[in-house]
């Protein structure tokens, strides 16, 4: 990083109350306070948000693609976690 190269921040926007923050994109800023303001100007200028988080991109740990199978596959073969797994006789309501 050169002295003019500002770090990258990831921006999460809550579009309205009751919803969670969703990743909107990234931007550059010298520090957290400016990142928040830049995010407000860039990602909510059409009223897209009521709350913003900014996180230094470098601070995020992500699962990597080669871990894909062991990481996510076990969750795919447990259909009993989903309501559609269960057969209910026709006519039974409120279930």
């Amino acid at each position: 990083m050169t002295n003019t190269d500002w770090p990258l921040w990831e921006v999460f926007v809550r579009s309205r109350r009751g919803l969670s923050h969703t990743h909107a994109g990234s931007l550059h800023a010298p520090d957290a306070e400016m990142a928040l303001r830049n995010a407000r100007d860039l990602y909510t200028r059409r009223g897209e948000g009521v709350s913003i988080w900014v996180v230094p991109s470098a601070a995020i740990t992500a699962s990597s693609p080669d871990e894909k199978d062991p990481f996510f596959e076990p969750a795919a073969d447990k259909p009993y976690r989903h309501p559609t797994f269960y057969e209910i006789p026709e006519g039974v309501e409120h279930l």
Partner: protein
Amino acid sequence: MTATVATTAALALGDDALVLSHRLGEWAGHAPVLEEEVALANIALDLLGQARVLLSMVGDEDELAYLREERAFTNLQLVEQPNGDFAHTIARQLYFSTYQHLLYAALAGGEGEFAPLAAKAVNEVAYHRDHAEQWTLRLGDGTDVGHERMRRACEALWRFTGEMFQPVAGLDVDWAGLEAAWLESVGDVLERATLTLPEGPRVTAWSAGAGRQGVHTEPFGRMLAEMQHLHRSHPGASW
């Protein structure tokens, strides 16, 4: 409050917003970093929106913006000052948005006809002030170069700040209190930016008055020439 008095006030506030918006618009494509293109445009658009509401209280917004002569504009000389470097633009923003924020907060709390506009605008202006403050801190307390540029900018524009507290007819405001609050607020920001309030005079040594009396600085005429030429070249045309 007579209609004329209200008109005077709406024009003064409207011209401030119109002219500063124009100056900020000149930054488009020239900002020091892309994120700042977006930020400056947001502020310019807020101000233009305010100007349109205020001018429309007086008459046709376009006639007022495009067909008045220089001497009929009553904006502060501060807002017509050329952009200069980014430090000058930020110093101008700090001085003006602090003033506008205090003024609109006072108007929003009152019962006058500007209360509804002020109530909406005060939130916009709070953000402009915050933007100016954040940048003043970074330019003043970052590098030596930044500090020096910010110091020079604050000093260069200082002599245009006294005019802000000349009472405007039609605005029921405690001007002396406004000035004291302004000095404290700006002083606090500058101190945190390792700068100090400039010491020079806050008005120019010319008794003819200033922007509020329709007396402007030379760059303003050129600004208006550019702003008005197309509109004036096609009398009566609609756009």
